[in-house]
């Protein structure tokens, strides 16, 4: 292919933010497909449209997902992009890597693909961006040998992800890294072999700061919390005062339930335990003095998803507090999620996320079917209509 100019993309090498164009150019030095990608993208910038077709069915032996087919609609002009598939690698918990692991990926990808990658994709997989159909199985074989496995795609369990958790964060209310690893391993079949109405995402956040955006971005959000009350270190409170922190204004006045009382005279901070919603604001502001309680676990929220089709839903509370214990192998969570999947598998329509299925069939139907007790924590407020369904056994004959 003859050299062409890329004046529009070149503009995007200017400026202080690291440039993806520079990255493509680096890959283009070594790889013909990446070089064509640069020119195809320049053409998209001229024409203001993408040039990729719907994915065809490609894959690796034994799996139904993990690879996404991608083909340009201009294969004659860009023969090296005729097939330019994606491989998803299930990333390690918390996206921690040693450099050896990363170099292993690079070495395989240098040999067998475009050299372009996403660290990471939106769901959290490491994405290898652009290879040909014949390379897919060898890539998988070599990744596998390096200890890697593929992530989810299609109507399956997508690769779960988690926050940094106890690895680096004082707020972690359960071991997000282990939970993510353990549960991902438990459900390898669900992850690799699509069999559900649509995709299902699980994200693990260690506290209500929700650094993985689990409540918005996952069908099942596991958000760390505690059942008792805040731990307050009064000496550390005094130290904050000495440092000049205006505790009343910055902490107490912004507490959503006004459950924190600061005595300016004694410099003591106290909490009205039953009024605290464990929102994390005070802990975020005074991490040296305030910590989560001792009885720790997670709130489980279900149904989060983005716009398509029935509108975006945020996850809603289905279990206010669940123990998330390494010791019992996260058994309570696994029991629950399997009941949920079974219900969804039976009741969901094609391409219907679980939140949409529950919205369509009603929360009572769902809760009753999966055996979760209804509690007020599940709702901001009760129903405004009197449209109650009455089960036959509660009716007089």
């Amino acid at each position, binding site marked *: 292919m003859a050299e062409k100019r890329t004046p529009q993309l070149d503009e*995007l090498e200017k400026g202080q933010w690291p440039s*993806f164009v520079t*990255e493509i150019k680096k890959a283009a030095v070594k790889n013909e497909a990446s070089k064509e990608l640069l020119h195809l993208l320049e053409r998209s910038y001229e024409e203001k449209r993408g040039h990729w077709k719907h994915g065809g069915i490609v894959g690796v032996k*034994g799996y139904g997902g993990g690879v996404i087919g991608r083909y340009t609609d201009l294969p004659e002009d860009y023969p090296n992009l005729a097939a330019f598939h994606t491989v998803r690698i299930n*990333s390690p918990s918390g996206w*921690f890597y040693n450099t050896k692991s990363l170099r292993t990926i690079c070495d395989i990808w*240098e040999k067998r693909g475009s050299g372009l990658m996403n*660290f990471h994709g939106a769901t959290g997989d490491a994405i290898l*961006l652009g290879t040909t159909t014949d390379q897919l199985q060898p890539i998988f074989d070599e990744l596998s040998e390096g200890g890697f496995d593929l992530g989810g795609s299609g109507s399956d369990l997508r690769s779960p992800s988690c926050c940094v958790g106890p690895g680096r964060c004082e707020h972690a209310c359960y071991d997000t890294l282990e939970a993510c690893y353990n549960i991902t391993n438990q459900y390898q079949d669900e992850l*690799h072999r699509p069999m559900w109405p649509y995709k299902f995402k699980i994200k693990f956040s260690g506290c209500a700061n929700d650094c993985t955006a689990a409540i918005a971005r996952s069908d099942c959000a596991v958000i760390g919390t505690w059942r008792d009350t805040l731990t307050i270190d009064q000496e550390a409170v005094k130290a904050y005062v000495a440092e000049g922190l205006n505790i009343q204004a910055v902490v107490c006045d912004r507490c959503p339930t006004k459950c924190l009382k600061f005595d300016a005279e004694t410099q003591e901070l106290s909490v009205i335990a039953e009024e605290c919603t464990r929102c994390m604001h005070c802990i975020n502001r005074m991490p040296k003095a305030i910590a989560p309680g001792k009885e720790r676990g997670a709130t489980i929220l279900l149904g989060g998803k983005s716009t398509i089709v029935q509108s975006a839903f945020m996850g809603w509370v289905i279990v206010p507090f669940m123990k998330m214990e390494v010791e019992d192998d996260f058994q309570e969570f696994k029991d629950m999620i399997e009941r949920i999947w079974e219900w969804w598998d039976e009741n969901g329509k094609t391409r219907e996320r679980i939140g949409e299925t529950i919205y369509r069939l009603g929360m009572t139907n769902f809760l009753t079917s999966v055996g979760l007790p209804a509690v007020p924590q599940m709702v901001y407020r009760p129903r405004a209509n009197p449209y109650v369904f009455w089960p036959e056994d509660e009716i007089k004959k």
Partner: protein
Amino acid sequence: MAILDQGPLNYKEQLPPIIKENYGKWRYHENPKAGVLKHVSESGAELYSIRVGSPRLVSLDFIREICNLADEYCDGYLRFTARHNVEFLVSDAAKVEPLIAALGAKGLPVGGTGASVSNIVHTQGWVHCHTPATDASGVVKAVMDDLYEYFVSMKLPAQMKISLACCLNMCGAAHCSDIAIVGVHRTPPRIDHDKIRKGTEIPSLVASCPTGAIRPNPKEKSVVVNDAKCMYCGNCYTMAPGMEIIDPQNDGIAILVGGKVANARTNPMFSRMVIPFLPNNPPRWPEVTDAIRNIVETWAANANKGEKMGEWIERIGWERFFSLTGIEFSDKLIDDFIFSRETFRTSAAFKY
């Protein structure tokens, strides 16, 4: 042959020694300067995390380069954040400033912590997606160049998360971001009956339309679209390549603001549309960068310290958001889908 279902790498083997030793024992953290987090353990150990902006779409060379840096300064360990930043995990305080200098020399920005703009979570766009209404990486680059000063400093009222989704599938989950940049189509799909006839399941295609705008067309063995009912979501195109929705003249970008995911202080919130359309104007999308800068700076000038975009707007009222930013309100911003009712103002108390 590959081993099936061996699962991801065991994270335990990917953790630096300082983390293994202090796992679950972290006591508190500080944010001594932009891009630097200092975590202190019960043991007294101190871990410095140096956060670095990445374009997300990277080459082998980029990864090998950061591996070299990690080998030199971090005993060979690093991590990535949920927002696509790189974090170097430095256990030796003496190596912090040399690492920052080395990063600077390579043009890698250190920042994105605390009251800053974080890296933009985004999708593939024209680079590798089949349904985009705009590019992703290019818009992100333009916006981050423009907001660079807010990445490398902590002078905003609070953290700001920007996301970009190149179509309504919103793979980037832009729906709960402080600022969401969303690629939008604006014209109904053009039906390629030949493509539809070849292997499209008509009932599924009909069912894919959220407004019931698609009906079977038995004569053509295809479908027909009621244009008046179509709101260009592209769900049909995702299902069926014959429902061509890409329209270079009319595709572009919508801006939504005020979403949040953390539960701190206020409940998580959806982002809300404030600009229904800006044109695709590559390579630098000046209308988009201008609009975002206006929103960011109006927020920065008016919000209380510690107040997220959405918290600020909900406190002052959306009507004041429009008057303060000077953004034009129009009927396009009024919801007319399933859950519209909850957005209608059912109160005689409001501002001007």
